[in-house]
């Protein structure tokens, strides 16, 4: 069977207490608490794994312990040609460990595998589990004035509607940013509020002149407690709609990942036609997301003309979504066991016409953008993600494929209809903004071809299975979907009464943030917005900026337009009167 090879290898290193299999390509190995870091490191670096997600769980009602699940995608290191596991051996191995509620301490994996840093910080926020040896123990998800000793995802902690009182502004604890040592460093805070983007995030850039030497950021201003909400009052029919609202762009990928996790936990196979339509809709989502990002990457650098043209083409992809699902953004057609809405022959015909328009016009505009030397000089060599950094932090999506690592969930772990579809994984060497945008362009082309293949191969079957299925409490599974920004991973443990016991939703960008710091280093302040944009994190920075010069203690508030102008023209640095 798949995965056995890895479990065998693992048991030569550490003591494996128990092995359970969730589905064909997912196994869980229970290890002792002290063996945890070594077990994860061994699978990550020695066996060629990437960290998919980590799920802390309150299992006191099941086995009187807290549990941690480190899910690793076994696919090979991919650092050089041939450094890859054979296609039929790729799988997910989860390392599970139990933590006693008396100690609440576990050994941190982060010193050995840096990719775990955010997950372990979150484990403290949500469950109060302390990672011993974690270099960065600040809060991650909850706000700084959240009451100590209140850990929301513990089953007995609080009602899901409870909102603790906010502290007054002056009482609020200060968030400590990681700052580099030295004099003459200028702090540039970006955000958290801005009018243009849908996601707030606070970036603290440390600059020497106009050069960024380091960066730190505080995110999760929009943490809404969806996981707690779903555990308390949602059934599976409602969860799909909630998951679809996790993200404003790749919502559909979340919806299918969430529902597929629930389906996998009970080994429910959905009809082939439903699989194909799920793939079609998620590829349409990729079309509009990538067009949005390429457009914004032009807009941030001041190339308005190209931006407008790309958005003109993007409108066709929105129309396509409207045509086949009835909604421009929220497709709302996923339910457990299949789909709610079929695609008719007339719609297929019209879709093919729109796809042709998108394909030809994207080529035209991309060609013009590539010809533009000024545009290229802004993209090339900026925001480089080093290959080794990428290996250490497990980023996903175009971010890692732009660094020459061939990681794509559709290719590594083909789900749904992807087993029958042929496509090339877009990989570009270089790691700069240009490489990432190039990956996106190549994926636009492959998405069009995938949708066409789906229309062609889609069998005439039902789109939903008989809904008499029974969920089994304590079953759990991972589901993974390659969203436009990378893989969205959902982990669901089922509970009783058609509810979930634990839902862990990991969005693509969650894995991309920790390595962003390295992408900032050494770049010009004017490129900061572009680098964040090329990550495609819901374009989230340049609204309102305070600049403080540590040396002269002078400060200045930059407006959205000040910084944007500087980003576009690279002239008249807004910081010059501070020096």
């Amino acid at each position: 069977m798949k995965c056995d090879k890895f479990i065998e290898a693992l048991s030569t290193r550490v003591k494996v207490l128990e092995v359970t299999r969730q589905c064909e390509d997912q196994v869980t190995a229970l290890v002792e608490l002290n063996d945890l870091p070594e077990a994860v490191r061994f699978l990550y670096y020695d066996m060629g794994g990437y960290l998919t997600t980590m799920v802390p769980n309150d299992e006191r009602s099941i086995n009187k312990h807290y549990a941690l699940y480190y899910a690793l995608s076994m696919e090979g290191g991919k650092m050089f040609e041939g450094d890859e596991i054979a296609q039929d051996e790729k799988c997910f191995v989860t390392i599970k460990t139990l933590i006693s509620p008396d100690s609440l301490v576990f050994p941190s994996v982060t010193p050995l595998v840096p990719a775990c840093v955010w997950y372990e910080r979150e484990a403290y926020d949500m469950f109060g589990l302390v990672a011993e040896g974690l270099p960065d123990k600040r809060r991650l998800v909850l706000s700084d004035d959240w009451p100590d000793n209140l850990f929301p995802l513990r089953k007995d902690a609080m009602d899901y509607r409870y909102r603790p009182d906010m502290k007054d502004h002056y009482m609020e604890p200060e968030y400590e940013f990681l700052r580099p040592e030295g004099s003459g460093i200028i702090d540039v805070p970006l955000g958290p509020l801005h009018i243009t983007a849908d996601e707030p995030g606070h970036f603290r850039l440390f600059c020497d002149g106009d050069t960024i030497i380091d960066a730190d950021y505080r995110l999760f201003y929009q943490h809404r407690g969806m996981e707690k909400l779903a555990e308390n009052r949602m059934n599976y029919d409602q969860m799909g709609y909630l998951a679809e609202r996790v993200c404003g762009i790749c919502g559909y990928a979340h919806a299918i990942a969430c529902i597929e996790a629930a389906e996998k936990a009970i080994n429910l196979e959905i009809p082939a036609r439903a699989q194909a339509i799920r793939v079609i809709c998620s590829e349409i989502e990729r079309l509009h997301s990538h067009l949005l990002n390429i457009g914004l990457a032009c807009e941030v650098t001041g190339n308005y003309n190209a931006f407008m043209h790309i958005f003109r083409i993007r409108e066709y992809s929105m129309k396509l979504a409207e045509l086949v699902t009835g909604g421009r953004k929220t497709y709302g057609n996923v339910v457990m066991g299949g789909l709610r809405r079929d695609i008719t022959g007339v719609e297929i015909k019209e879709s093919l016409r729109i796809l042709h328009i998108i394909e030809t016009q994207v080529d035209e505009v991309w060609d013009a953008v590539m010809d533009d030397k000024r545009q290229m000089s802004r993209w090339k060599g900026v925001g480089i993600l080093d290959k080794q950094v990428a290996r250490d932090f497990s980023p996903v999506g175009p971010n890692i494929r732009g660094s020459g690592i061939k990681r794509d969930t559709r290719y590594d772990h083909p789900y749904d209809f992807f087993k029958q579809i042929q496509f090339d994984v877009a990989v570009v060497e270089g790691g700069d903004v240009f490489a990432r945008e190039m990956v996106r362009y190549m994926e636009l082309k492959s998405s069009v071809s995938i949708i066409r293949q789906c229309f062609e191969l889609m069998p005439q079957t039902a789109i939903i299975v008989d809904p008499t299925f029974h969920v089994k409490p304590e079953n759990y599974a991972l589901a993974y979907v390659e969203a436009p920004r990378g893989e969205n991973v959902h982990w669901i443990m089922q509970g009783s009464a058609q509810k979930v016991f634990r839902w862990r939703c990991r969005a693509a960008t969650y894995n991309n943030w920790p390595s962003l710091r390295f992408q900032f280093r050494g770049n010009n302040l004017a490129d900061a917005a572009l680098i964040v944009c090329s990550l495609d994190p819901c374009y989230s920075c340049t609204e309102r900026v305070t600049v403080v010069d540590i040396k002269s203690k002078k400060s200045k508030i930059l407006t959205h337009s000040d910084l944007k102008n500087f980003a576009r023209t690279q002239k008249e640095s807004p910081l010059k009167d501070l020096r």
Partner: protein
Amino acid sequence: MMKLLDISKKYGEITHKYPFEPYKVCENFRGKPAYIFDLCIGCAACGIACPSNAITVQLNDNQSKLIWEFDCGRCIFCGRCDEVCPTGAIKLSEEFELAVKFDKSALIQRGELDVQYCTTCKKPFSAKRLVKYSFDCLSKANVSEKRLEEAKEYLCMCPTCKKTATVATFTSGKEMVIE
């Protein structure tokens, strides 16, 4: 740079004149759910199916009317209500212009249905139209005249009284012939 200008020239003006002329949406567009009061029977299927609690069906304060209420501000346009409605009283329309001016209560749509009072305990328990709908369904179902009369009686009783009445008939010692 010049290439982009050429493309601009090629495609010309592509923006719609909206809002000065109507914007046409695709067939089967999922817009604002349109409610047809005359068809509504107050069965509350939509209220149970609605994932975001945008539709509620409950008795008003003095228990004289059954209030069907739809809050467009909570609606996620999934169309579950459309799917479950037995009479087609709620259908997703093509309407997408939903903004209201200052007054959020304009987002709320409501229908007041007459309630059926229980013949025994005189408490309200359902909508008159639902009782009529159930009776109509039974009349079409090839049920004998006598059974139909009996059903009419039962339909106008609240669930608790119905239970009591059934138990009373079963234990009264009378013999019954099921036709």
